[in-house]
């Protein structure tokens, strides 16, 4: 497969790709990486997923290196969200759900029966599509809610609160009203609050399931800046429908597609290659906007 694609690659180089895509994609550079806190990344091996009899995802193997940002792109219904939910065992919340394969964190399969699933979700945090701050809590309580939920101790809550809100790019907007309710914030601010909330338990990996799809462009930009900053200290996987966003924020991009059957991972490569020289014809069609 790789040999026959090599020829395509060379041809592709002369091809004109949308300038906005290629220029930002090539600017996604490697950062200085702080390796001590973020473990050794995350690895999916032969992951399948079902809903009842519906085979939604087939044989996805992906390696998320520590300190990288990986974007999952692809048309609706191709299994991106299903896949990302298998990575921190949120998939099993759907009553008819089933899965096969392994997800390796720190050398251990998170689906191993001996694993405490709540510990896994502390290490692999998640940000959802729709901002969902806890309505009964203030902004400050929302950020620290993970500590209470998981019954973790921390020496200095105020420092942690500030650190998380600063990292999520929300501190300046809310520092004077930490006791206001989360619902009083705008949609974009709520989503950054949710990011701050998931940072407070210090995850190694952060999964983001279309975190900007409900937000305006300004808020989207803020969240992309946040992702950029976070990527120096953790591994990030982001599902997005927005290819410019994938090009802007990610180091690697994986393209998912379903041809009527279960969704599959078509190809994964450094982001600038996916957009400039995709190996697979279907990827090329998708990233150049010929379908999807």
């Amino acid at each position, binding site marked *: 497969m790789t040999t026959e694609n090599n020829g395509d690659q060379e041809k592709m180089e002369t091809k004109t790709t949308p300038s906005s895509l290629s220029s930002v994609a090539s600017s996604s550079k490697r950062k200085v990486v702080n390796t001590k806190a973020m473990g050794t990344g995350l690895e999916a091996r032969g992951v399948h997923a079902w809903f009842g009899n519906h085979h939604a995802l087939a044989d996805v193997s992906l390696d998320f290196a520590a300190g990288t940002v990986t974007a999952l792109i692809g048309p609706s219904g191709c299994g991106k969200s299903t896949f990302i939910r298998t990575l*921190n065992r*949120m998939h099993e*919340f759907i*009553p008819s759900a089933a899965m096969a394969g392994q997800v390796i964190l720190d050398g251990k399969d998170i689906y191993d029966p001996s694993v405490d699933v*709540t*510990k896994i*979700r*502390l290490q692999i*945090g*998640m940000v*959802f599509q*729709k901002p*969902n701050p*806890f*309505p*009964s*809590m203030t902004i400050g309580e929302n950020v620290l*809610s*993970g500590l*209470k*939920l*998981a*019954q973790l101790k921390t020496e200095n809550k105020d420092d942690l609160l500030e650190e998380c809100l600063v990292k999520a790019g929300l501190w300046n907007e809310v520092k004077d009203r930490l006791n206001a*309710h989360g*619902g009083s914030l705008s949609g974009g601010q709520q989503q950054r609050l*949710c990011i701050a*909330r*998931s940072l407070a*338990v210090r995850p190694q990996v952060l999964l983001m399931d279309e975190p900007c799809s409900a937000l305006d462009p300004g808020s989207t930009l803020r969240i992309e800046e946040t992702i950029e900053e976070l990527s120096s200290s953790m591994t990030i996987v982001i599902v997005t429908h927005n290819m410019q966003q994938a090009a802007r924020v990610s180091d690697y991009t994986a393209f998912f597609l379903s041809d009527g059957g279960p969704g599959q991972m078509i190809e994964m490569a450094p982001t600038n290659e996916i957009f400039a020289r995709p190996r697979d014809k279907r990827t090329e069609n998708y990233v150049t906007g010929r379908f999807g």
Partner: protein
Amino acid sequence: MTTTNSYQGIKPQRPWQASTKDKAITVGIFLFSIAFAYGVVLVSGLNGKLGMFASFVFIFVAINSGRSYLQFGSALAKDSLVNILVAVGTFLTLIPIVSILFEVFSKGYKGLYLGFFTRDMSLNSPNDPLNTGGLGHAILGTLILVSIALVISVPIGILTALYLTEIKGNFTRPIRFLVQAMSGVPSIVAGLFILSAILYPITKNNSAILGSLALAILMIPTVARTAEEVLNLIPNDLREAGVALGGTQWRTVAMIVVPAAKSGLITAVILGVARIAGETAPILLLAGGGDRYNYNPLSGPMGSLPHFIWNSFKNGTPESIARAWSGLLVLLVIVFVLFAIARFFGNRKVGK
């Protein structure tokens, strides 16, 4: 400031609303229908308030629909017909409620005086004038009966609702069915059950706690069903967010789901209390009655508002019957206040 000049002469209008002329015509038809109905009652076999009402509705509907038909055609004529029938139905529903309220207030206020709320009837006979005696013992009794029933049924009811909405175990369907069936159990059945299961074989004596047990049986399904509906309104996003932060299911429910549903759960409890506050049958069987203050729920007959009302009517003297109406008024006001509080909490937005 000066930019408004270019819009001079344009005033906000509501062209979709009925004009003054239309309104006047409608009022005219209304008055004409009343007069015509009065005429019908005078000349025909229809008579009384009911005949007047029936002929008024018929004439009013006929004229209005005819007018719509001539003006707009048959579709809008049907629309106007149905509108009027709906309004008539609403009016008919209000009649019994309003007349009950009117009756209770007009007959009940006479017996009210300050001591009525603090004194009991232990030193009074049914013939005593209305400014002696009172239902303090009955209010206290109702408070004790309801409080004990509340303490028993709120935890059970809310835990049942949590099982139905959060745990969703194998028994969800049969339990939901049983809870729904239980909410239709007649109160006398609950009373007889406690009577035969506890009073006859064990205590052999009336006491408030037995009445509370029967009331709890009636209250649990109300609390459980209302709480289940409230918990179902909490978006699943919040549960997922809690679990994704490393919470166990129990901590997620306790810290996020229940606080988010707090105002609705309070409503569920208050509706449950309103359901049992006026229950009579099990109280007559189990708590007995009595005309004096009894502070001990574990032994001896205990008064209650429903029992006070029932007993006073039974005594049959004019003073006693007046006291019964006053007792009804007090009970109605208590239940109405509870519903108002429930509405207040129920209308508040989730979480705030």
